[in-house]
C-alpha cells in the first residue's frame, strides 16, 4: 500500500540487513507477512562483508599454505608463495557470492528491499534517506519494526581508524600486501583469529592486551593449546598493557602502551610499576571489542530505551519496551554472534506472525577460529555447580583419537559436563581440530536433553573426530574404550 508518493507502508519493517535482519525478513516473508528490509550499506551486514565470512576465508586459505609448508613430517616438501592481493580477491568473490545470495533469497521469499538509512520519526514510522546526493528520502509506516542495526568496532583514544596505519578488523581483512609487522591491540577472539592469519603469512605479530591473559572469556584449559600454538608461530604477547598512542616514524610507526591500571591496581601482575613499552611496527590493528549501533537511528523518537552500553533490552519475544518494536542481533545484546542474531531474527518474525515462538534455547554455541579452534556450548562446569547440579565430567584427548593422529593435529580435547544424578548433558567444550564442527552434535545433545548414555551409546563412524564426543561421554561413565577412565 502506497500512501502518497513519498510514504510507503509495510506490516513489518526490518532495519539492517545483517544476519539478524535478513533472517527475520526471510522468515517473515515465509510466513506471508508484508515485509520491507532497509539496509544502508551491504546485504549480509558485518558478518558477510567484514566479519565471520571474510575472516574464516583468510583463516582457511592461510592454513592451506601453512599446512603444506609444515608437512615435512608427512613427507611433503613445499614452499608456498602467497599473493595477498589474490587471496583478498578470492575472499571478495566468496563474499559477493554470499551477499548476492542473500539478496536473492530475500526476494524469493517476498521481502521488499529498500536501500537507505532508516531513522525513526515516531513509533510507527521511519524516514529512509537514500545514499548519494539528491537521491532524497521517503517515509515508511510500519505496524511492527525489527531493529537489527548490529554493531561497530570500538575505537580507543589515540587510535583513529581513519588514519592509514591504524586498522579496524574490517581493514585487516582487505590488506593489499602482507605487512612486515603488526601490533594487535586486544587478545579477544577477533584479535587472536587475525593474529593467526598474519603470523602464518609471515608477519611479525605482537599483541598488547590489557588483561593478563588471552581470550579472557574462556577457561585456561581451553586456551592453553592456543597459547602454545601462538608461541610456535612466534606471536609475542604483552599482557597488562593498554595501547596509549602511536607515533609516525616515517618508515613505520611506534605504538606506545602503558601498564594497564586494571591490572596494576590489583597488585598481582607483571605490569605493576612497569614502564611504558614502545613497539615499532608497520601497522596497528585495534580489536578491543564492538559496540551496538543504536545511537544513529533516532530510536528515542520511537520511545525505545537502550541500556548504559547502548544495547536495546528485549524480552523473550524480542520485544523492546515498545511492544510492537523488536530488536535482534548484536544491537540486542550479548553474545554478539551471528547465529544468535539469526535465531532471534527468525523467532521474532514468528512471534509477529502469531506463532508460539520464543527466544528459548538451552544451548548457545560459540566458536573461536584460532589454531586450534575453541568451541563451547551450554554450561561450564562452574555454571553447572552454581545451578545446583552435581557436575559429572568426561574428557577425551585428541592424542588418543586415531583420526586426529592421521591429520597431524592431535592437540586438545573434548570435554562434556553432565548432571551426575540424571546424566543429562548440560554443556561441552572442545579445543582442537574441527572443534567448530564437532559442536553441532554437542549442541544438539544439550538442546535435546540427551544423557551421557545416549551419546556414548550412539554408534559413531570410525575413524572420525566425532568419536571423541562419544568417548568423552563414555569417559564420564567410566566406559571409554580409547582413553583411561579415572
Amino acid at each position, binding site marked *: 500500500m502506497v500512501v502518497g508518493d513519498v510514504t510507503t507502508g509495510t506490516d513489518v519493517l526490518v532495519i539492517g540487513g545483517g544476519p539478524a535482519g535478513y533472517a527475520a525478513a526471510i522468515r517473515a516473508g515465509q510466513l506471508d507477512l508484508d515485509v520491507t528490509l532497509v539496509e544502508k550499506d551491504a546485504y549480509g551486514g558485518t558478518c558477510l562483508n567484514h566479519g565471520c565470512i571474510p575472516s574464516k576465508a583468510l583463516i582457511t586459505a592461510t592454513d592451506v599454505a601453512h599446512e603444506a609448508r609444515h608437512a615435512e613430517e608427512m613427507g611433503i616438501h613445499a614452499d608456498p608463495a602467497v599473493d595477498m592481493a589474490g587471496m583478498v580477491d578470492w575472499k571478495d568473490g566468496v563474499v559477493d557470492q554470499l551477499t548476492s545470495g542473500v539478496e536473492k533469497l530475500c526476494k524469493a521469499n517476498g521481502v521488499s528491499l529498500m536501500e537507505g538509512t532508516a531513522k525513526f520519526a515516531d513509533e510507527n514510522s521511519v524516514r529512509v534517506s537514500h545514499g548519494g546526493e539528491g537521491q532524497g528520502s521517503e517515509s515508511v509506516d510500519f505496524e511492527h519494526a525489527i531493529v537489527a542495526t548490529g554493531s561497530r568496532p570500538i575505537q580507543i583514544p589515540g587510535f583513529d581508524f581513519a588514519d592509514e596505519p591504524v586498522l579496524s578488523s574490517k581493514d585487516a581483512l582487505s590488506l593489499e600486501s602482507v605487512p612486515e609487522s603488526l601490533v594487535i591491540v586486544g587478545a579477544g577472539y577477533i584479535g587472536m583469529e587475525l593474529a593467526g592469519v598474519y603470523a602464518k603469512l609471515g608477519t611479525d605479530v605482537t599483541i598488547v592486551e590489557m588483561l593478563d591473559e588471552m581470550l579472557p572469556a574462556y577457561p585456561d584449559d581451553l586456551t592453553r593449546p592456543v597459547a602454545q600454538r601462538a608461541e610456535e608461530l612466534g606471536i609475542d604477547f604483552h599482557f597488562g598493557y593498554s595501547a596509549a598512542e602511536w607515533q609516525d616514524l616515517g618508515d613505520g610507526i611506534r605504538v606506545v602502551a602503558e601498564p594497564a591500571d586494571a591490572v596494576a591496581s590489583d597488585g598481582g601482575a607483571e605490569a605493576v610499576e612497569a614502564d611504558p613499552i614502545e613497539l615499532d611496527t608497520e601497522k596497528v590493528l585495534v580489536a578491543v571489542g564492538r559496540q551496538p549501533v543504536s545511537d544513529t537511528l533516532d530510536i528515542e523518537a520511537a520511545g525505545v530505551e537502550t541500556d548504559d552500553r547502548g544495547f536495546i533490552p528485549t524480552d523473550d519475544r524480542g520485544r523492546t519496551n515498545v511492544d510492537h518494536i523488536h530488536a535482534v542481533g548484536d544491537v540486542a545484546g550479548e553474545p554478539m554472534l551471528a547465529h544468535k542474531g539469526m535465531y532471534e531474527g527468525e523467532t521474532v518474525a514468528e512471534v509477529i506472525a502469531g506463532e508460539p515462538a520464543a527466544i528459548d534455547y538451552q544451548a548457545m554455541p560459540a566458536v573461536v577460529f584460532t589454531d586450534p579452534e575453541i568451541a563451547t556450548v551450554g554450561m561450564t562446569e562452574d555454571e553447572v555447580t552454581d545451578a545446583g547440579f552435581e557436575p559429572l565430567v568426561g574428557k577425551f584427548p585428541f592424542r588418543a583419537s586415531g583420526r586426529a593422529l592421521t591429520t597431524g593435529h592431535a592437540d586438545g580435547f573434548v570435554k562434556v559436563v553432565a548432571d551426575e544424578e540424571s*546424566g543429562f548433558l548440560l554443556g561441552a567444550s572442545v579445543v582442537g581440530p574441527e572443534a567448530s564442527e564437532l559442536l553441532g552434535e554437542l549442541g544438539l545433545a544439550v538442546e535435546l536433553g*540427551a*544423557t551421557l*548414555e*545416549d551419546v556414548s*551409546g*550412539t554408534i559413531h563412524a570410525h575413524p572420525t573426530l566425532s568419536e571423541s564426543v562419544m568417548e568423552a561421554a563414555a569417559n564420564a561413565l567410566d566406559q571409554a574404550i580409547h582413553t583411561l577412565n579415572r
Partner: protein
Amino acid sequence: TDTPSGRVFAPPSVRRLARELGVDIETVEGTGPSGRLTEGDVRAAAESDESAPAGTGDEQPTE
C-alpha cells in the same frame, strides 16, 4: 507402537532401561515429542501389570 514398521522411537538410555526393567517397548505409549518414548513412560509401564509381568525383569541370556 503406531508407526508403520512397528519402530519405536526412544533414545538408547530408554531402550536399555526397558530391557533392564523387562518392559516391551512396543507395547508402551510414548509421551515425548511426536510420541517419543521417555524414561518416565518406561518406568510407568514397568509398574503396570500388563507390560511387565512379574518376574520378567531378567532379560539376560540363558547361560
